[in-house]
């Protein structure tokens, strides 16, 4: 039913529309602009495709282990919502041969429509990443966490889901000035997608959703 597909669309619009921002921090004083495209998989006719959500992202290397960034959700803007992420990636462990490095990324995800419709979702992503090869390509696995601060929904109903987590795996193809990124993410595998107005396409049957994302980054 069309309404179900569209509801999935909005579901994913806000909390699953983007890949990891910066897994590895930029070099000190390095700038990077990124555009990502992709989203959870839906059935489209006979094909299964990712919903093409678009986000734009800018980052700056405050030092070699700490990158600040801001992201703008372009698709959300089409719906009249100003949605942006303000965050920072801090590398807390260095890579030792095949023992991956570790970074953490706290994010404030801000959505504003009007004075009655505004939300702040704190996020925390933790990623382990491994650089390899001459080009220092990066493979990473991580987990993104969203936190619902509101304890109640409309009609004073208790908000059941206060934590949504999303395991992910990705690969970044590194070039001198450009990076190309592909990522797969499992969205909320702990939550049932039954008895919701959604039709998720997921390998986990009645749990969560599954997303695929592509990104391109220009460093300067």
């Amino acid at each position, binding site marked *: *039913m069309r309404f179900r597909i569209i*509801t999935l669309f909005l579901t994913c619009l806000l909390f699953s529309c983007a890949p990891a921002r910066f897994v590895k921090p930029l070099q000190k004083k390095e700038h990077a*602009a990124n555009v990502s495209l992709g989203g959870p998989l839906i059935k489209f006719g006979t094909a299964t495709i990712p919903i093409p959500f678009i986000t734009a992202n800018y980052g700056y290397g405050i030092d070699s282990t700490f990158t600040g960034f801001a992201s703008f959700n372009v698709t959300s803007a*089409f*719906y*009249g919502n100003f949605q942006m992420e303000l965050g920072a990636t801090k590398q807390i462990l260095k890579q030792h041969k095949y023992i991956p490095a570790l970074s953490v990324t706290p994010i404030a995800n801000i959505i504003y429509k009007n004075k009655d419709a505004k939300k702040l*979702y704190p996020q925390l992503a933790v990623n382990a990443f491994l650089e390899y090869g001459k080009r220092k390509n990066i493979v990473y696995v991580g987990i993104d966490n969203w936190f619902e601060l509101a304890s109640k*929904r409309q009609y004073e109903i208790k908000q059941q889901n206060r934590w949504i987590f999303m395991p992910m795996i990705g690969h970044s193809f590194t070039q001198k000035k450009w990076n190309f990124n592909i990522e797969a993410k499992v969205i909320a595998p702990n939550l049932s997608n039954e008895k919701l107005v959604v039709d998720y396409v997921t390998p986990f049957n009645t749990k969560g959703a599954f997303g695929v994302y592509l990104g391109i980054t220009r460093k300067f």
Partner: protein
Amino acid sequence: MKKLFYLSSILFLSSCLTLDENLFNNSKLESYKLDGYTGEVDFILGSSYSIPDSLVHLFTLPSKAAGESSATTIYAIYIGDIVQIATDTVIMYCHGNKDHMDFYWQRAKLLANTKSKNRFGVMMIDYRGYGMSEGKPTEAGLYADVDAALNWLKTKGLSNERLIMYGFSMGSAPATKLSAENWSMKPEKLILEAPFASAETMIQDGSGLAMPGDFFTTLEINNGEKIKSVSQPFFWVHGEADDFLNIDSHGAVVYNNYQGSYKEAHRIAGAGHSSVPQTMGFWNYTNALGDFILRP
């Protein structure tokens, strides 16, 4: 970066998309087939529920929503003897968001045969944009179209105390609103099958998060709030296995918020969104409705 900023600003400032129209899952028709309809339906009744052709009336009505300069022509079906409307009890059936009256014809026939053969008159319309009705569906149009039907019934002699309002799924919005407010007629009783609480609840259910509905919709439908203004006796039936409108986040909210004189709840184990009558069994379903309608 400047270009990116300008592009983003333009998108933000010019954005106007909403999910409003996606509430309406309407289909157009060239003609109504009723029993001859071969498209998908929720169930098909046996011959014992047949309605004589003489009691099936298909006609058009003018419907004018607030602020509209001209009327929209919508299609209506009345099951029963029009002459008897002045003395009959009539169920105003507000159908769901899907398709058209051909899809809901079996349900309308079932209601007409509540308690006994052709016991009640049943009025059903296709909202604007549905079936053969002109125009595009809107929230204001839902209310205006149902009110046009009520107005027609009133002109045929129906009085408030013999009018039963029935809303299924999306139809719960006009059914609740027109029961709560002063329109052409004031129903004596309200029946809601698988009602939804609000557009915001749909969004919160869909997202799993407590996000404002305003992010995606300008629809003001809020049955959970509007039901507080309904004083008439209220009958609620909902499938416990409803995976479209969750029984607890939607139907139970409407039921619990009702503050009128009498209410009864029917939580149907194993029933989905569209399978309450079948799961209950047609006799049990109509018998429960009939008991409520005939309850003093």
